[in-house]
């Protein structure tokens, strides 16, 4: 059978169109794959950052706990500009050095190469700025209080006036021992080699 010229041309165009479509589809699939790979890499990196930051928190709480006996007590009256972070935070840092002799904030580099550094800071919550201005870098104010009995004290540890409903979502307990409850904020920021950061903050109460 004799094939017509026009039909042969049409077939060629069809093949070209199909090839073009396949090329586009390949490009799209490759792009999606790379994106997925990139996303999963980010998730892994975030996980490493999270673990490193959480380790920083544990490190800070551990050192704070082991040094709690020697810490100075009393409400800290902030001097100088309250709005200046670099002025305020050093006044709230307890005088604790880590195993390397560093004063706060501590820098941990043992997570390399996945995480370039973790910075850990500890801040005493028993302070007064002498005003009511609020700045996001300030930790919540919590005065130290005695840790005894249902009566408790101004540290907020009293059963008087506080919900006593026994449920995990009423996240309140009352102390029953003696001693002073000290409140601290521990902050930990992990930084990746690429500059991504993940920060965790926790407030702990430690019986002194």
């Amino acid at each position: 059978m004799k094939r017509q010229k026009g039909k042969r041309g049409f077939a060629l165009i069809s093949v070209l169109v199909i090839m073009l479509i396949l090329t586009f589809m390949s490009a799209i699939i490759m792009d999606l794959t790379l994106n997925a790979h990139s996303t999963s890499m980010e998730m892994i990196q975030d996980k490493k950052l999270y673990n490193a930051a959480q380790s920083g928190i544990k490190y800070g709480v551990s050192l704070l706990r082991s040094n709690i006996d020697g810490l100075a007590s009393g409400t800290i009256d902030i001097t100088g500009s309250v709005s200046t972070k670099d002025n305020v935070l050093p006044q709230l840092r307890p005088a604790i050095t880590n195993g390397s002799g560093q004063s706060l904030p501590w820098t941990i580099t043992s997570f390399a190469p996945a995480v370039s550094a973790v910075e850990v800071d500890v801040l005493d919550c028993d302070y007064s700025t002498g005003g009511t201005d609020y700045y996001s870098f300030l930790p919540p104010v919590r005065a130290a209080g005695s840790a005894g009995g249902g009566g408790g004290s101004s540290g907020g540890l009293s059963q008087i006036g506080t919900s006593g409903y026994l449920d995990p979502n009423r996240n309140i307990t009352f102390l029953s021992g003696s001693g002073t409850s000290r409140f601290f904020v521990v902050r930990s920021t992990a930084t990746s080699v690429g500059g991504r950061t993940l920060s965790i903050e926790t407030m702990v109460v430690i019986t002194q």
Partner: protein
Amino acid sequence: MKKRAFLFAGIILLSMCLFPLESSSADQGYIRIYINGPSEARWSYNGGLTWLSSGVRSPRISVGTYTVTFNSVSGWVSPSSLSLQVTKNKTTERTVTYQQGGGGAQVPDKWTVWAQPSYQGSEYSPLVFTLVNRNILAWVESDKTPTASVWGSTLKMVDFSRSESIRQVEFPGTQRYLYSTQSNAVMNTLDANVKTTMTDTRFVIPELVQSWLTLANPVETIANQQFTNSTVGAWVTSWISFLKTYTKAGLPLSDTGHASPVVTWPDNAWLNGLPGFTTFSDGLVATYANYGGAIIFLPTTDGIIHAFGVDSDSDGYFAELWGAMPLSSFLFGVYQEMLKQTQSLTLHPRIPTLGAPILIHDVEDGQGGWVRLLAGATGEGVNLSVKRAAAWDTETGRSVSSELGDPGSVDGHAAGVFALDITDPAYNGIKQRWSVTNIDLGGGDGFLDLVSSATSNAWTKTSYSDINSGSLPSFAGYRTLVMSLSRPVAGYTGDSSRVWHMVLLGIDTGNKFRLYNINPLTGELIGTTQLNEIAASGTEIDFPSKIGAVAAWGESTPKLEEIYFYLSNGSFYAWDLDAGTAPQSLLNLEYRVSSVYYNAEVVQEFDGTFLEVEGEIHRFIAFVIRLEKAGEGQGGGTIYGAILIDVTKLQSQSSLPESLVIGGSWGQTNVFNTESESVSSMYLAEQMHGNESYPVSAPFFYDGKLIITATGYISTGNPSQRGYYGKIFIVDPLTGDVQTETAYGTRFVGGALVDESGVLRIPTADGQILSYDLADYGLDVPGSGGGANPGDVGTIYWKMTN
């Protein structure tokens, strides 16, 4: 001539300006819907403003996307709404079908939706327990999709440690639904074939019903739920097949009955003082971190307990982790199958198989060992009957319970209690710890033979003679349970040697309230206590009784010295389980309408605290009750009020219980009324005369004040303030002074939370979060954690800050 031409041109230009529709008429089209179904069926392209019959074409409407909805027709299930694109000068056509399910209940072809959300019936249930010093709030809202006549639920949440954005549920592409078989220590996925030996304890009590089922063709009488009968056995197989077949992906959740979502963290501050708990809790931290630091659990009436992670990504969604059906709920399914078969239904009926609040609590399991249990009851249970068709089509009102009917060949009741072990919250780590039900599926060997060929059958089943002879007292007592709609209480008694308890409050077969004292690890009954209080099941379904425990003076662990419960018949009790004394009836609350006295019902969980009164420490309890007032629209109808009880003073009275008629002096707003020496009350309203509000979360004590969040509708007074409103009451319990904050033009939904920095957070119906810093009202943040010995550490809060 020229002037006339200009005039015509002007008229044409003016017309084009004044009547732009004419100029854009070319950008219009039509919709036409053909309906297979009843003659009453109608469709609407404009949200119900205009209803059109089958085959009728819409007027010319602008091009664009339209949502077509369908009306409700009694006895039929409406099609899901359609999203249609109208194009220029075209008629977009679709054909839809209304479904008819035979002579019984009407249900959609996907099984996750339930006829009505329960809070359409009672408005304030389910809501959430108020959270204090926590950062995640989760709540349920009604979701009317996928059909116009059937309601479902949607779960929402906010993690305030990350943002104030309300997030929606996203079901994963591959769902993990688990069910319990008697041979599994770990719950199976529905399509799994591998089964392992069961090590847990579960129990089935045969329901004594003569001639339980009579079949007409072939004529057959089946006694005592004998599902090993060849006919009925096939139904069970069909039921299991149904469970396997239907996916819930993309569907709304079923109605949640009386259950509200429970957010669960690794820690429990109340247990820190008990040996081994902090180690156990620390061990959970890494696991929970995989799900964003917390897990939300929510039971739905289709029998499934859902678990959701609170993942930290910022896409506005959070994901379902798994769904698990406790054995006690799984067994209810045979009734659904039976009713489908016996009543020639084309679709499965939906008997509510879970509908009570769940308890999630850690319990000591041996020396220094801990397990995390998720426990509850099947809720309303089933009177071995099915809802009538009308119940499924009603969209408003509170008449669901009254629609229950008893098919002639079925009698008796079904109820169950269960506990899952969720210590490992991964989908392949969930275990059925124990389950007790009075449904008996077989001739002595449970339903194992019906679902698998697994061996090592550890199923426990009792016989009538065992029950009657009293040889199985630890389980026989469950035979009395008809329903339980109250969240159980968990805690311990004793000192150095602790005995753990789960206390369930229910209604028994004698129509009286009964306390079931359960070993939470095994399900065995330590004992039951029937109260001399008549229970009305209908009232209990609408306004369930509440039971809870508060920490005794000087106590910071869940020692069960002070359990309180308020029954739906208006009676308030105290119970010292640790002392082993009988529950003490303290108070009966009634109200009066037209010289007739009625019981005042409680509508939220309560709270308790200590306050100093004349130099002495007194126990105070607060809750909210509901009552009726004569008249309509002028302060009449349903009204709500806070009740504050000085329990110490009340218990010192020589004659108990005290009976009070409440609400007689209500009228003034923002004022506490003295009802007696020990009891005071406050009317919840923004203004007088028909502007009542109802509580949207449990009242709670915070830094010496009682806080209640409520919402209502203003119909009179200042026109600019009419409409929905939300209101916060901050009450000094000793002086009765009331501070208030009102948000006009919005409606509170979903409960309330106070975060660790002392900010009260309340979601609104229009998707906003209202935040009130309680420090602005003179309140300090209560402490948390800590310990008795130097160096003890407690965590106040933990959050990611970027």
